[in-house]
């Protein structure tokens, strides 16, 4: 039971964004997608979600081609938090989260939907802002309200006894402070623990190493590596893909997971600044 990309290629005009990508996101697992800016991470997630159609290859959800599924059917199987979430209109936070139920909400009483929305707002730490207008929230609060909207879609499907869906998150912690970064990723892990699949694009390699079961490294439109965190997060990867210096990979004393401390680069920049 997977979300699978098979030999997927995606072009926009003359430009090849992704080339011959084959990988699968499993249920019960958190897969973090990492890579430099412009590598094709968000494009990979868009193709996996069905937002864009590949120019070559197939995207399969539980064995069925995503391209052949109706938007309504697909909405019960996966939800995605994109980076573009500006809402037009002066919606209240609770209203916006309820709207996340979308087409899947048909047949569900509005009171039940509101109760689910309130529960999710509680989970993302915005319970007290449920009655506020979206446009009055800070960037980080808006991002978490949108996460609640996306989780609402999966909760409604779950309430209808459908199998746990896939949660696709594109840079969900980019506007969060450290405590809320942990909260957001904890929610993603909880979804995986309840049998759902999670694919999350992250720029913070340490969070990726800390929370993921699998790491996908995307570089120049190709999958450079796809394996466990320990197998992927190596000194060689840090140097060749992310341009970091030797000795930046360490092992966490408690978890044993690798983490990156790019002190050399910071030191070098500090010296440059001091000498200038």
């Amino acid at each position, binding site marked *: 039971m997977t979300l699978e990309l098979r030999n997927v290629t995606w072009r926009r005009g003359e430009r090849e964004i992704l080339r011959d990508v084959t990988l699968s996101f499993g249920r019960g697992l958190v897969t973090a997608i990492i890579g430099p800016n412009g590598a094709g991470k968000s494009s990979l997630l868009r193709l996996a*979600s069905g*937002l864009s159609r590949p120019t070559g290859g197939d995207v399969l959800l539980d064995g069925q081609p995503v391209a052949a599924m*109706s*938007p*309504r*059917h*697909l*909405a*019960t199987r996966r*939800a*995605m938090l*994109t980076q*573009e*979430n*500006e*809402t*037009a*209109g*002066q*919606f*209240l936070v609770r*209203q*916006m989260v309820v*709207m*996340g*139920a*979308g*087409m*899947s909400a048909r047949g569900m009483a*509005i*009171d039940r939907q*509101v109760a689910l929305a309130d529960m999710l707002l509680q989970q993302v730490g915005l319970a007290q802002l449920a009655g506020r207008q979206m446009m009055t929230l800070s960037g980080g609060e808006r991002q978490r309200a949108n996460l609640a*909207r996306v989780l609402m*879609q999966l909760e409604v499907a779950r309430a209808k006894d459908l199998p746990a869906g896939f949660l696709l998150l594109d840079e969900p912690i980019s506007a969060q402070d450290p405590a809320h970064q942990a909260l957001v990723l904890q929610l993603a892990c909880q979804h995986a623990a309840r049998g759902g699949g999670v694919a999350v694009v992250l720029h913070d390699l340490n969070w990726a190493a800390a929370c993921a079961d699998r790491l996908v490294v995307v570089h120049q439109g190709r999958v450079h590596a796809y394996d466990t965190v320990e197998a992927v997060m190596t000194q060689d990867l840090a140097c060749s893909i992310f341009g970091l210096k030797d000795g930046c990979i360490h092992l966490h004393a408690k978890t044993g997971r690798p983490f990156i401390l790019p002190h050399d680069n910071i030191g070098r920049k500090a010296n440059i600044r001091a000498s200038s």
Partner: protein
Amino acid sequence: MTREISRTVWLFSLLSVLLLLTMLVALDTGATTVHLRDLWHPAGTQDQATRLVLRDIRGPRIVMACLTGAALAVAGTIMQGLFRNPLADPGLAGVSSAAALATACVIILGSSWQWATWLGMWTIPCAGIVGSFAGMGLLYLFATRGGVTSITAMLLAGVAFGAFSGALTGILIFRANDAALRDLTFWTMGSFSGATWRSVSLLVPFVLIAGALATCLAAPLNAMLLNEHNALLIGYPVERIKSLSILAVACATGPTVSLVGAIGFVGVVVPHLVRLAAGPDHRIVLPASAMLGAILLTGADTMARTLASPAEIPVGVVTALLGTPAFVWLLARSHRTDVS
């Protein structure tokens, strides 16, 4: 949530009462001293003038004003939801300008066309309807590539198309005779003076289609406010929503513009006024806009035919006179919100 429901109930109750009152005042007021109470006479005892004025002159005119106001306000609401732009207006989609061009063609060149004599009094409305649908169809085809319609391309092409058809209308006006020019000028300013039960019956099917489409589009238009991608992700068929929205706008705007002329500001101002009171939910904004549009246009028409009585001011002039300050106020308000 309970507070929101009770606010909605209050809003619709208020609008219903206002609509009824406006219609009664419109029926009671006019150049001829015929009053509503005359209808209370037992059947058969009403004189012919009363029946003529109330049933055949003011009656269709009020129904026409209500239908037009509702249709234009609904078209404006749909346009603003679809374009995610609070200042979008049915005129932006090229419907009004295409209808104006087609109407100008018929008024100025039509006397030499055989089919124009066959259609008789329906020539101008039919030309306007065909023109508006053709204009919107052209824009839709232009903005659609590979099954995906670009709303931005449609908006920009609509503005360009409006300017181009305005220029063509200008050329036609340049070669028009005095009578044709007078007809065209009167049509351009909009008026319900030609409303009859027959013209109402021509408009009704289009308004019903637009109303049915708007009912189906209310929830999807809410999702479109999240942006197109998010609407698709939560299960809405975005491309179908766009094409149905465009069809609804064409059905609501084309025939009304063709029958009563270009009436500005209702489409852009009414949805705003409703949103101020009821929030952004299209399931409330669409029906409430229809009611408020009907109220405002019926009221404007009553003013148009009574302010300079027995002469009539074109209703487009009244809506523009009332609408312009309201529009400027909205612009200033949205600017203040953007800055703060």
